[in-house]
């Protein structure tokens, strides 16, 4: 076990864990941040996505030991129901969730993408989200939500 300090959502947070622990479990179980979700543990589905130093990253395959000193942002770091981020608001406006389990990954991937591409086409959005899986078939609404968020920026 090792104790280290993480920069999560703008705060320094001390955690004690095995260094090979994927960041996902530390966020969920030690820091009570349940936005990022376990989907596959293989980096295939995107449900666990967080933003590390501006880049959308699969936290299920990111060992804790590689995160030290980097800025981690989770879904909670974007906003809350009381203070929604414009992307979160756009997902509500577009009613872009069914079971919602994948939505963390959709929003976090969209956030990192829009930060780099503030005026995307619909095709750009589809390509940016192509590595994120949704089983409910919410895709058209997710694309709609990201386009709304881009337009409101």
């Amino acid at each position, binding site marked *: 076990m090792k104790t280290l300090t993480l920069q999560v959502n703008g705060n320094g947070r001390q955690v004690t864990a095995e260094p090979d622990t994927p960041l996902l479990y530390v966020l969920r*179980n030690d820091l009570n941040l349940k936005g990022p979700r376990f989907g596959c543990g293989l980096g*295939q*589905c995107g449900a666990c996505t967080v933003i590390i130093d501006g880049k959308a990253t699969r936290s299920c395959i990111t060992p804790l030991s590689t995160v030290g000193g980097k800025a981690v942002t989770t879904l909670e770091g974007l906003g809350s*129901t009381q203070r929604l981020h414009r992307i979160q608001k756009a997902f*509500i406006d577009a*009613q872009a969730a069914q079971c919602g389990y994948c939505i963390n990954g959709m929003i976090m991937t969209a956030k990192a993408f829009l930060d780099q591409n503030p005026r995307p086409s619909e095709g750009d959005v589809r390509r940016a*989200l*192509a590595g994120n899986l949704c089983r409910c078939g919410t895709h058209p609404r997710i694309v709609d939500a990201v386009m709304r968020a881009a337009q409101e920026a």
Partner: protein
Amino acid sequence: MNAPFAVTRRQFLKTGGALVVGFSFAGSIAEAMGQSMPFEPRDFKSVDAWLAIDGSGRVTVYSGHVELGTGVETALTQMVADELDVPFSVVSIIQGDTLLTPDQGPTWGSLTIQVAGLQLRKAAACAKRAMLALATKELGAASGDLEIQNGVVSGAGKHITYATLAKRRALQVPFDEKVELKKPDAFRIVGKSIARVDIPGKVTGEFTYMQDFKVRGMLHGRVVRPAAMQARLESVDDAAARKISGFVRTVVKGNFVGVVAKTEWGAIKAMEAIRCKWSNWSGLPPMDQVYATVKKTRIEQTITPMKEGDAAGALATAAKRLTATYEYPVQTHGSIGPSCSIADVRRDRALIWSASQSTHWTQRQIAKMLSMKPEQVRIIYLEGAGCYGRNGHEDATADAVVLSQAIGRPVRVQWMRQDEHGWDPKSPPYVADLEGGLDAGGNVRAWNFVTWLPYRIGGAVDVPMLAEDLVHGGAAIQTSGNMNAGTMESDAKPPYAFPNVLSTVHKLATTPFRPSWLRSPGRMQNTYANECFMDELAAAAGADPVDFRLKHLKDERGAHCIATCAKAAGWQTRPSPNKETATGDVVTGRGFTYVFYDNARTYVSAVCEVEVNRRNGLVRATRFVIGHDCGLVINPDGVRAQIEGGIIQTLSRTLIEEVKWDASRVTSLDWASYPIVTFNAVPKIEITLIDRPDQPAWGAGEPICAAVPSALANAIFDATGARMRTAPYTPDRVKAALARL
């Protein structure tokens, strides 16, 4: 820890609500299920369901049906709030808790709005009537002079709130099945696209899924799966696992091997470190012979869902005769979040949190596992990732129960991806043979349908729990006996009026994989076969596919649905295939399908447009146009979301999904080996909802799924002249079909 058990439901309701309406769901569910559905009324336990109004005017609904991510929590709230004449915001729903809610059966079959919702409306109507009766005394006015708005009864210059009425007097009234319901023109909340109550929490991380829930003192468990589907455990070596940080214990019972650790990562590493020796087993049929194996399987029972005239005789004398065989693969539920549960098993009771879509059935199964009475087991429902049928949530629950019982602590089990893909129960392999005969005028004179499905009798047939079977030294899973794959014979009869029809269903003694229901079980596959074959007959008759269907349909409401869809799509009347576009690598086509779900409810018509690349075999659906008549629409946007999702999910199933296996076990254990469609495969979707406020509200989650495979196959035929009779329509299969032309 004692609290959740010490309180009885009656005590809970005493403290929680002043007005209580009790009723039974049994009769009407059986009715809605109809003749072809699994339940016989006697199999239903008549348990009261409850609706309470407390002293602050808040309304609590106790629903045995649960939110699975489809939006029913919002829709049921709309139905109750409207019927009761209270604001939408004061109504909340407790779902699936076995202590507090009625056993309405599993949340399946698109029956929540249609059956459970109607009952809740009736309960609300009974409650309103009781409130009105109380108010006439309080206000000294005749009930005809009173009106109710937003939970306030007013008349004769006075008013009184539900909250006040509730505070003054606790009231119990019997449920009246025949209570008068609100007329459609009085709806204020029903019929509106109210935003879903769960979405804000889901987009901010504030929503608590089953996978997020924690219990004080909880440990983490994982299960080591057998090396072959029916292998026996020979030995376990956990020396390496014991060295993992946080390791607590290895639990071995019969063929069940699990591990418990203080941390989730510790449990995962220990699971991977355990070395088990398993006996060899290689009893699965080769993948390329699965449909032949199905047809050769011993038949337990044969039923004929439809028998009219003399199909064999009419076939023999038909002017033109066609035959075709349709195959649909073994598929998995593919929930994005693997199944999860927490169990706290004590000597004489068990408290469990589960995302089971059928908590009351799961309660019964777990009680049996623990040799307890059902009332010693309480299951509290927490929403998980979408399940689309009976996935692994119940099995993860049983896993957690075994581990918690063994170590005497609360244990959380979340399945790994390979557990979900490899070990959730599967949608069984499907094959159907069709024969049809046309007369000289191009009319269908004879129709003969045969399919082979896993054997099932009776209603509440449990899907056996993996853990229970393993613990008792069983061979991992049941693939014989009375199996529940979800009334797959439904829609085996065509929705058309043919003079000579025979639909035959052989019920098989065994099936390769433990079966369960997966969204639109059987109805989707049967409709695939029927509607593809209808298209083949239309082409043989040289007829336009829409005209041909209308000519054989004796259902005005269905015909209206077809015409509405065809018009919205800009359908051009001509036979298939389309000879004009047949040049170049990429060709386009359109296909039509018609569904009358369960032969009893919800009409769906679909036009699908495709692009087929004849060089590489790639199929892309570019546009779906849907006509959808599910009667009264409670929440139009909610219905649209279900239709969109059903199209995309079934498109995925039909184009690319197929469980893969070797002789011993499933080998498609992740999203690379069992992919689902992503954003680039999503077509344009246009939906026309045919709202019928004066008609009963029917289900909307499943019926659309039944339309997709045949609409797609018929469009591919229109584009290329090739028939896709085996799903998924992979590039190789498309190229092979083209090569046969």
